[in-house]
């Protein structure tokens, strides 16, 4: 067995990458300010699949957070920081599709379908109700003789009886 130092070079390198900037992060920007920016962004390191930049713990995300902290310290606003990142990486860096142009569809379609579904549902229910009223004007014994299930105990007794076969 070859001798090993306490912290093998392989991951000394890695953690320097992640933490090398530790000493100079005497941040003026508060963690909340940082979070306000990072929660709108994703990590684009390529291996951790668009994880939120707030919570991603890969070395790349650490570096990005350091950069953003520095930019905030230098007096840049949240919008300026994000705009700079978009210049650098494209709008893919945003966690959600920007609500403008074609991408507005992303936001509208789910609710449009929700509304459309409700309209279809209403139409269906109304037409079913109509065929019931049409049928009762021509009374049929099955539905006519059904007890009014207003009373819970009556309903329960009926259903228990239904299930007695279980």
């Amino acid at each position, binding site marked *: 067995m070859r001798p*090993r130092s306490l912290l093998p070079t392989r991951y000394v390198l890695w953690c320097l990458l992640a933490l090398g900037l530790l000493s100079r992060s005497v941040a003026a920007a508060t963690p909340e300010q940082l979070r306000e920016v990072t929660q709108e962004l994703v990590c684009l390191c390529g291996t951790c*699949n668009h994880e939120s930049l707030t919570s991603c713990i890969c070395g790349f995300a650490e570096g990005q957070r350091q950069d953003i902290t520095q930019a905030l310290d230098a007096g840049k606003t949240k919008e300026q920081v994000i705009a700079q990142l978009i210049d650098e990486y494209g709008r893919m860096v945003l966690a959600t599709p920007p609500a403008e142009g074609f991408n507005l569809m992303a936001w509208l379609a*789910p609710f449009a379908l929700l509304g459309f579904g409700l309209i279809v549902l209403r139409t269906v*229910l109304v037409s079913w109700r109509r065929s019931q009223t049409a049928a009762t004007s021509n009374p049929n014994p099955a539905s006519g003789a059904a007890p009014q299930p207003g009373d819970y105990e009556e309903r*329960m007794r009926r259903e228990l009886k239904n299930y007695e076969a*279980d």
Partner: protein
Amino acid sequence: MIDLGYFALCLALVTAGYAVATAAMGARQQNVALMRSGENAALAICGLLTVSVIGLWYALLTHDFQVEFVAENSNRSMPLGYTISALWGGQNGSLLFWGWILSLYTAAVVLVNRHRYRPLMPYVVATMTATSFFFIVLNLFAADPFVRLPFTPADGNGLNPILQHPYMAIHPPMLYTGMVGMSVPFAFGLAALFSGQLDRNWLYACRRWMLIPWTFLGAGLLLGGKWAYVELGWGGYWAWDPVENASLMPWLAGTAFLHSIMIQERKGMLKMWNMVLVLLTYFLCILGTFITRSGVISSVHAFAKSNVGSYFAVFLTLITLLSVGMIWYRRESLRAESRLESFASRETVFLLNNWILLSMLFAVLWGTLFPLISEAFTGEKITVGAPFFNQVNVPIGLVLILLTGAGPLFAWRRTSTESLKKNFTVPIAGGLAVGGLCAILGVRDGYALVSLTLCAFVVLAITGEFHRGTLARQHSTAESYPVALFRLCHKNRRRFGGYMVHLSLVMLFVGFTGQAFTTERDLVLTPGANAEVGDYHLTFETLAQKEDARRDVVAAAVTLTRGGAFLSTLLPQRHFYKNVDQPTTEVAVYASWREDFYLVLVGWDPKDSSAKFKIYINPLVNWVWAGGVAFVLGALWCMWPTSRDRRLAALDRRTSQGLPAGDWDAQKRGIEV
């Protein structure tokens, strides 16, 4: 063994071809001998694929690194458990595993239904063996797990480190058992369409065979969440990753189906709709697999790119054409006379349930596919991340939880105003009281307030159903309350098992709501330093490192106390596997019903041994896991065979054997409610 495994796979292909042909011909010619031969061939496929899987396992366990799959997904230092689970750790092996589970399902369906659903069975066998045929083709021509390298490496690459975790050993089999199992209801649905036997039989079979994979899928989803929570280190359990979404979608469709079939059973309505739902559920399973395996959408779960995707695209197209074509062909028989006696009825609520579940499904599908759609139209790559899914699905989810409680309070046909008042007063008052209390206690998040109010409403509504049912039973039987409650649930397994699942959903939602109150902190501590986070007090004791054959482990020891009382010593770790650049994360969690203290070791400075931590205080997460357990228990309660099931099966057996069953039809009518 490898050759034997490969040979068995080849034989399985021939057998599957034979099974499809004989079962289909048997059905067309009503030739019982051919049908039986097809069923026996289905059993043979199961045997052959079992041999094949054993062959691959043998190669893994004997470290036969000349086999490419073994060299890529295992190595000598992996513990036995992960060497076994490596079977589903890579593309080719997992597809073989998938095919094997499918063959097990097929064999189970054949054996259970030797004397049941006879008009449907040959079509069921034909559909399922045709699916098997597809997977065997895939394994032989696009994803051969038995391919040999021209040389024998001394050691393998090893399983992807993030998969070397106990939850990852069980989460994929659970999920596969769920996804693959959806092929059974699909097969029964298609069989009903092919045979034209669109009575209740297929529906009865479908419900039972849907419940099993649906439960596995739900459990698999939550196990995946648990794995992500403790292994990925970002403080959450659900990230709306495309692959998570891919397995959530069939679960949503299956849930919609399990509810809307009740309308068909009771009133013969929605025949067409239920057929669409059952076929859609399976379609979504295959679509999900296509998304995962083809690499069209990037994901943490993405397998190595291969042409497997194009096979799935063809398969997806075939099942779509077949489903749409057959529904069109039988559209007249699927037409049903539909009537509604009152808008205030269980029927209406079930339709609302379908509406909200499918809306959620669409929102998830849309968000998953939107990056593709957007890139196709605008040429720009964009991200649809977790915040999108949360913003869209939270309001939809709140309507869903409302229906979970409101639905059971409506009676079939019509609900009188008095009984509505009687059933709703307590739950509404209780819900508002809880909501008000939360507001007074300082909950300011709007969604969280609504969610907690609704959760309380649902709990009161559902427990009210248990309570009233028990009282009604006591009224007529003079049993004690606990006995009456048990017998009530036992005699109405389906209904009260369903309510148990509804209660488990409340537990899940309570857990989800906790996410609104997550707090997060970054800390850099030198050994011996203290810090306060929330009302926790932590002391960073020391950083330790050890090495074994597989990996280097770096761990921080942190003592956690609250109010002076010792809680736990937490050991968050990073693992550096050989040949892998990125370290894996092992999170340390101190969990209670109130909240989780979640500690991640982010990195450390070799110079002064200071360490950087990320800390999350995640309220109510344990409710999610407990809800998962409750979900499985409730679902098991639902699907447990009843004496009615046994009597129906016995009747079917007698008739199929030509034995006198008395007035069979009358008996069956008496049993089938």
